[in-house]
């Protein structure tokens, strides 16, 4: 297994745990209303979110500087953003429909701007790993 492929696998596993952890903490701590009122709660979510993003960045970016990545890996890396783009568009479509239908009469609370942005970055990071793994899978079955 190529080094990049391994990192993508670790990145996907971490991304899933990371996303589930944020969702669980968010629900256990009281959801949107508490998030809007409680600064301590917001800081916990901020820590999880930014910390996870930094960890993911270190996991994926440190490899690119090493000689373990060659032209085939870079080709796959270059195609991964296609999956990221579709995942982000899909998540934004879901957010738009859900928020519009839920808050049609009273208007969407501004706090959702933050949640949409946060979830989009998480989706983007996880989709990046998925895009790399799909790239290796497609290249492997090139017959």
């Amino acid at each position: 297994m190529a080094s990049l492929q391994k990192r993508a696998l670790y990145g996907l596993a971490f991304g899933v745990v990371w996303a589930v952890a944020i969702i669980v903490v968010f629900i256990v701590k009281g959801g949107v209303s508490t998030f809007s009122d409680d600064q301590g709660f917001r800081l916990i979510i901020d820590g999880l979110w930014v910390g996870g993003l930094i960890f993911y960045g270190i996991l994926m970016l440190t490899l690119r500087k090493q000689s373990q990545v060659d032209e085939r890996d870079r080709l796959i890396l270059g195609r991964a953003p296609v999956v990221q783009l579709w995942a982000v568009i899909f998540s934004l479509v879901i957010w738009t429909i859900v928020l519009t239908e839920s808050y049609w009469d009273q208007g969407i609370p501004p706090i959702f701007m933050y949640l949409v942005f946060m979830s989009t970055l998480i989706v983007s990071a996880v989709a990046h790993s998925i895009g790399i793994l799909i790239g290796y899978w497609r290249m492997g079955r090139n017959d």
Partner: protein
Amino acid sequence: MTKVKNRIRRLRFDHDEMTQQELANRAGCTRQTIIALEQGKYVPSIELAFGIAKAFGVTLEEVFQYEEST
């Protein structure tokens, strides 16, 4: 499979059973790319193709052949 065939496995054998890692080091790629090339699942760039030919000390045509479709 790709239309570009190669003799990398044969050439490694002819060069005292050169390991995939050794060839990768000489050609400037990873061992996984050499595996993909030998399995015909990847077509290298011109630069890497020349690097592989140089690692064996042969011409490009001796390593890679284009298979015309009939």
